[in-house]
C-alpha cells in the first residue's frame, strides 16, 4: 500500500517523442550514424530490386493451372507442381490408392503434433504410437484386409523422406545416448569400442556409408538373401546420426557438475538410476539446441539417398524434371520441395525452443 501511495505522488515524465514510436525506432535502429544510414539505403534498394521482381515472377506473372502452357508466360510455372504433385509427393505409389499414404501421413502428423505437448505424454499416447505404427505400415504395405499389396520399392517421395527421417532420428537419438554413456564408461572394452565407433563414423561422409550399404554390404550376404534397399539406407542413416548425437550428448555429460553425481551417490542411487533420474535429464536439456541442429541436418541429409537410387522427395522431383514437357522449370520444382523441407525443419526448431522454455527450472 505504501508503495502505491508513493507511486501516485511521483510526477510521470513522458519520454521525448523522438525516442518512441516508429520514428524513434527507425532513428535508433536504422539511421543512428551516417554509416548505418548508408547501409540502410543500400539494403533497402537491394531488397526493392530483388524482392519485387521475385514476387512479380512468383505470384503475378505466374501460371498455376495444371497442364497450362507455361512456355508463353513470363513468370513462374507452378503448373509443374499442380500437374505432377502426385509423382513428386508419392513417387511411384499406385495413383489410384493414394488415400492410403495420405491417411498414413495425416496419422503421423497428428500424432507428432499431439506429442509436442508434454502434458499428453502418458502410457495411452505410447500405445497410440504403437498401434498407429502398425496401422500406418498396413496402409502403406497393404496385402491384408483386402488392401492391395504395394511393393516397398514403390514407396517414394515424401513417404520415403518421412520414413527415413522419423525412424532414423528416433532410433539414432537413444543409440547416440548409449554411445555417449559408453564413451564415458569406466569399462575399457566398452569405452574403446564406443570411441572407435564414433571416430570411425564421424570420419567418413554419409554418402560413403550409403554406398557401402547399397553396394558393398550385399556382397557379404549369403546367396539368395537380400535386404531391402530402403532398410539398408535407414540403418546407415541411424548409425551415422547416432555418432554425431553421441558427441553432442557427451558434451552435455561433461558439462555436469561433479556434485550432482556425488549427491546421487550419497543417497544410494545406483549407476542406472543416477543416469536416468539425475544426470541425463539435466545433460540432455543442456544439449537441446545442438541436438536439434544435428537432427535438422540429418533430416536434410536423408535427401542423399538419391545417390543410391532411392526415390525420395528430391529424386521424384528430378524424375519429373526429366520429362521433356517440364524441362527448364527446375527452379519452381526445387522451390516447392525446399518449402517442404523448410516447414519440417522450422517445426523442429520451434519445438526445440518450446521444449527449452518448458524444461527451464532455473527460473532465473
Amino acid at each position: 500500500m505504501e508503495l502505491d501511495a508513493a507511486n501516485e505522488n511521483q510526477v510521470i515524465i513522458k519520454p521525448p517523442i523522438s525516442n518512441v514510436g516508429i520514428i524513434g525506432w527507425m532513428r535508433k535502429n536504422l539511421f543512428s550514424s551516417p554509416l548505418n544510414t548508408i547501409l540502410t539505403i543500400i539494403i533497402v534498394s537491394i531488397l526493392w530490386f530483388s524482392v519485387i521482381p521475385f514476387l512479380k515472377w512468383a505470384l503475378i506473372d505466374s501460371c498455376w493451372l495444371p497442364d497450362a502452357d507455361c512456355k508463353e508466360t513470363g513468370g513462374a510455372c507452378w503448373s509443374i507442381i499442380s500437374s505432377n504433385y502426385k509423382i513428386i509427393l508419392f513417387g511411384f505409389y499406385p495413383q489410384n490408392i493414394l488415400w492410403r499414404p495420405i491417411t498414413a501421413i495425416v496419422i503421423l502428423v497428428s500424432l507428432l503434433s499431439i506429442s509436442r505437448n508434454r502434458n499428453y505424454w502418458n502410457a495411452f499416447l505410447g500405445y497410440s504410437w504403437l498401434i498407429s505404427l502398425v496401422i500406418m505400415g498396413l496402409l502403406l504395405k497393404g496385402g491384408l484386409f483386402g488392401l492391395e499389396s504395394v511393393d516397398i520399392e514403390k514407396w517414394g517421395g515424401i513417404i520415403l523422406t518421412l520414413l527415413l527421417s522419423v525412424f532414423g532420428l528416433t532410433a539414432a537419438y537413444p543409440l547416440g545416448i548409449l554411445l555417449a554413456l559408453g564413451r564415458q564408461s569406466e569399462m575399457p572394452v566398452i569405452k574403446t569400442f564406443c570411441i572407435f565407433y564414433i571416430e570411425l563414423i564421424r570420419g567418413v561422409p554419409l554418402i560413403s556409408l550409403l554406398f557401402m550399404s547399397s553396394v558393398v554390404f550385399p556382397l557379404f550376404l549369403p546367396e539368395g538373401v537380400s535386404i531391402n534397399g530402403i532398410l539398408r539406407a535407414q540403418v546407415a542413416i541411424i548409425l551415422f546420426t547416432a555418432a554425431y548425437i553421441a558427441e553432442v550428448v557427451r558434451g552435455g555429460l561433461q558439462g555436469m557438475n561433479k556434485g550432482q553425481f556425488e549427491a546421487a551417490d550419497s543417497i544410494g542411487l545406483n549407476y542406472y538410476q543416477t543416469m536416468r533420474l539425475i544426470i541425463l535429464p539435466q545433460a540432455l536439456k543442456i544439449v537441446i539446441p545442438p541436438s536439434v541442429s544435428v537432427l535438422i541436418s540429418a533430416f536434410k541429409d536423408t535427401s542423399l539417398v538419391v545417390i543410391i537410387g532411392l526415390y525420395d522427395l528430391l529424386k521424384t522431383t528430378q524424375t519429373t524434371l526429366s520429362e521433356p514437357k517440364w524441362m527448364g522449370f527446375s527452379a519452381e520444382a526445387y522451390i516447392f520441395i525446399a518449402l517442404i523441407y523448410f516447414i519440417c525443419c522450422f517445426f523442429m526448431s520451434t519445438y526445440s525452443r518450446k521444449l527449452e522454455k518448458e524444461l527451464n527450472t532455473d527460473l532465473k
Partner: protein
Amino acid sequence: MNTENAEKVDISSEDTVIKIVNMHKWYGDFHVLKNINLNIKRKERIVVCGPSGSGKSTLIRCINRLEEHQKGQIIVDGIELTKDLKNIEKVRSEVGMVFQHFNLFPHLSILENLTIGPIWVRKTPKREAEEIAMYYLEKVQIAEQAAKFPGQLSGGQQQRVAIARSLCMKPNIMLFDEATSALDPEMVKEVLDVMISLAQDGMTMVVVTHEMGFAKSVAHRVLFMDEGEIIEENEPEAFFNTPQNDRTKMFLSQILH
C-alpha cells in the same frame, strides 16, 4: 544455542558405528590421509577442524566412499567398505551427507528432491515417500516451499532442503562437509539451528566445519587435522582451553583471533 537436551544423549555404551583402522589414502603420489585411526560411537557428535588442505573433507568423504582409500579398513555399521558395490550402496543409504554446495537436483522440485531416494533406493510407495518428505520439510521449517524448484530458494533454504533430503533416507549417521561455508553470513544460523536440533534428536554426526561456536556447544569430541593426520583430539572444552599440540594452538589462535 540451546543444547540442554543434547548433553543428555548417552554415548557411554561401547556401540561403535564407524571404525577406521590404519587408513591411508593417496591422490596419485600425494599422501592425503596418513594412518587414520578413529572410532565413532552411536549418537556421538564429532567435529573435524583444521586448515584447508588438511584432508578433513577427504576423510569424511571416505566414510561413504565418495573417495576410495588405498590401505587400512573403514567399517561403517558393521559393513566394511571394499570394492563391493552392493556394500557401498548399502552404506550410502545408511549414511546421509550434506555438501558445501548443497548439490540439490535443479531439475526436480523440492518435494521430488526429497522423495527420489526413498522411492528408488528404499522402494517406498510414492504417497508414503511424500509423507516422509513433508515431515522432514516441516522439521527444517520449509514445508511451504515443497512445490518450488531449488533455483528459487535462498542458499540457507537450499541447504536445509539438502539436510531434509538426507534425512528422508532415515540415516543412522550424518556427515556434514563444510555445510555452512558457502552460505551468506545471515543464513548460517538457520542451517546451524537445524544441525543442532538433529543433535538433540541423538543423530550420530561427523561435522567438518569452521564454526567453532558449534563445535564448542554441540560436539562430544573435536578432532584437529593437519597435513593428512589427526594431530589432536579431545573434548571441546579441553580442546579449546588447553590445546596440547603447537599446530593446534596456532590454528586456534588464527581462527579465534
